[in-house]
């Protein structure tokens, strides 16, 4: 009977139906995908530190040691006193001894105060420790030792008047320092923007607009617009719109009211990736290299052609810029250059994009 073709067909169909049904069910187990992490692996990556200091490694560092690290690795961007806004927002300033008592930074209510520093905003000292540890210094993140992170944090806190000059910060006393953070009481959950239940946030959104459709009450005047002198501050808007369409971009290189050019002309590639001439000049790159055409060394465009396609082009080129070399382009050596990694990387980025003018 089992050899009957009819039964064989039914049997096969039945098996297929069963198989289909089985496939429609989500797999309960997903065997052989993923493996257990080793303790060593977890230790290597699990670096986060919570406000209750879970995750904080044992260690310590003094304000004095922190000042040494700071001046060597941090001050270029953040200023000697953490005050600089040249590269990043200022870290220090705007907090008072009174704030340390109240846990509220009073200047957050002073609309005349220029800017908000990190110490004015941050409520949790763990945040400083965690971020310095995971992301600083800017061009060499995760290169500080645990004790260096303690000491830099101590120095920063000292700049803000939160700990004294002879202070040694450690895993033992950091909870006490938390009680002196100037804005420790400055956070609120009074909003409906948390998409979960674990925090006691507000239930309803804070605005309640009504979709009026006719003769609605509206603002009676135009209260803000860009002044004429800012017309071209974002570049020529004609070059930032498609060359065809219902509207064209306004030619902001000319005064308002200038008739729009209607003819469609082939458009040149925009100058988004234009040569970083300031950087090239500042570092004297242009003494030996031109954008096109050989000088002492190969042109930037030749370099771009030869190395721009490499997967590691930016790393390779920025490394070459800083270390110099000989032999790739001939026997005239290129000396090592003293520019920073970030500058070298932006030149490398431009080279990778083909070194457009």
């Amino acid at each position: 009977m089992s050899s009957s073709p009819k039964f064989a067909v039914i049997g096969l169909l039945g098996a297929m139906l069963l198989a289909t049904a089985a496939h429609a069910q989500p797999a309960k187990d997903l065997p052989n995908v993923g493996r257990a992490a080793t303790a060593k692996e977890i230790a290597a990556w699990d670096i986060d530190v919570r406000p209750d200091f879970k995750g904080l490694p044992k260690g310590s560092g003094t304000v004095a040691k922190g000042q040494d690290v700071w001046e060597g690795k941090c001050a270029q961007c953040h200023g000697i006193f953490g005050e600089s806004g040249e590269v990043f927002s200022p870290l220090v300033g705007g907090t008072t001894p009174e704030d340390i008592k109240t846990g509220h930074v009073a200047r957050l209510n002073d609309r005349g105060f220029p800017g908000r520093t990190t110490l004015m905003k941050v409520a949790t000292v763990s945040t400083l420790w965690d971020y310095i540890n995971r992301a600083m210094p800017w061009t060499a993140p995760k290169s500080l030792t645990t004790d260096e992170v303690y000491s830099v944090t101590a120095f920063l806190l000292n700049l803000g008047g939160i700990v004294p000059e002879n202070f040694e910060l450690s895993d033992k006393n950091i909870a006490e320092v938390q009680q002196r953070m100037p804005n420790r009481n400055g956070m609120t959950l009074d909003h409906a923007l948390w998409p979960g239940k674990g925090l006691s946030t507000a239930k309803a959104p804070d605005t309640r607009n009504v979709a009026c459709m006719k003769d609605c009450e509206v603002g009676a005047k135009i209260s803000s617009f860009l002044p004429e002198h800012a017309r071209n501050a974002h570049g020529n808007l004609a070059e930032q719109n498609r060359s065809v369409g219902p509207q064209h971009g306004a030619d902001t290189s000319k005064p308002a009211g200038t008739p729009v050019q209607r003819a469609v002309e082939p458009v040149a590639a925009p100058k988004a990736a234009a040569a970083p001439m300031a950087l090239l000049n500042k570092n004297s790159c242009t003494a030996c290299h031109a954008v096109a055409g050989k000088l002492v060394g190969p042109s930037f465009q030749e370099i771009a052609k030869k190395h721009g396609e490499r997967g590691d082009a930016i790393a390779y080129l920025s490394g070459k810029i800083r270390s110099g070399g000989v032999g790739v382009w001939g026997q005239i050596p290129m000396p090592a250059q003293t520019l920073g990694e970030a500058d070298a990387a932006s030149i490398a980025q431009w080279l990778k994009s083909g070194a457009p003018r």
Partner: protein
Amino acid sequence: MNSDDKPSGRLIKAPENFLDPAGIRQVFAEAKNGRRDFMRKAFAAAGAAAGAAAAPVALATSNPVQAGEGDPNILTLPEHSKGLGQAVATEGYGKPSKYEANVQRRQSPGLTQTAQASVSFAPLQSLFGIVTPSGLHFERHHQGWWDIDPSRHRLMLNGSDADMLKKAMVFTMDELMRLPSVSRFHFIECGANTGMEWGNVAVPTVQYSHGMLSCSEFTGVPLRILLDLAGVDYKKARFVLAEGADGSSMTRTIPMEMVESGEVLVAYGQNGEMLRPEQGYPLRLVVPGVQGVSWVKYLRRIEVGDKPYASKDEAIHYIDLMPNGQHRQYSSIQECKSVVTTPSGGQVLLDKGFYNISGLAWSGRGRIKRVDVSVDGGRNWRSARLEGAVLPKCLTRFNIDWVWDGKPALIQSRAMDETGYVQPSYKQLREVRSTRSIYHNNAVQTWLVQEDGEVKNVQLS
């Protein structure tokens, strides 16, 4: 006008940098002087102040031809009608037409001092539909972007304490891509999108005012599947920390409820291909409806725990200053918002007559229910057509017919989501939050169409 409406010295650079002090004074002087009358006079005054006193230029047809003659583009056959075109696979990976070269993501001058911790804005004024081409997706990097070898990328899953899960795990990309996958369309918006406009108009076009917004089809594994595999104790572990593999190793706290719902994805696909490096290749978190900073790129680790983490980007940045001096912390949801992308700031209408007003609406709380459009500064509204599939936590394209009579117009859009929440006006938003919160500005946007056809970014009060 209370003192909150004055621009304050704040760390976000754009408004102050963009308008020099004299410019800011001019803006506010203009705001305070006169112009008490309603619309018509307001238009004229703004036009004059913006230096557009010249006669209207948008008068003639934009498609002219002399009687009895013809368009040379028709009469003389072009090369492409008379010659042989290019071969297949001339470009192994095709590129946009060379005539599209103006459509680029761009930085806002003076917004940031480094290009590695910065933003580039998507050119919303030039995009159609709801999908952002991957190469035009906005960028926000905290410490520069990388192109990471996927064969060496790993995802680790562990707990703040050992008892949060049965076992900490490690996955390769091969393994993650073997798991059951889903593909979903979602918007991603930076929490600081439109942040430059809290106090006053600061930028000229929708690219800079709203361009930290993109939308893609993301493909990946629901994070829930991975947590189940690791045997997470959902009673204890109510928070999730996501961490990147780049220099900043960005971290953000995500509520477990979102993961349990199945909507949080560990994604590797974007619009049919792998993620672009600028968007976190090979792995990023997708947290629908939540601000972009939580969509951790170069995702290397997920930790489950019983408390939130107060990471740098939820304790120093991405906190919203309120008028009482307190900062809102863990503000995450991007509330219902919309903007007209065409016509929009910096464009010029070429002619009177018919136009299709088109824009985008989205909500971090679900689907868009309705979008209304006004051309008279919010006095009267008409409901727009919603195009295509209206998906939750996704961009929705809207369109509405408009015949421009050549007179000044104030174009606005106002979206409503499925919870009934209606996008607020600047007045309503500032009444609650003042002007210094940087993040979560979802106010109704106004574009002024001047008589000469040029469109300007304006705010009403």
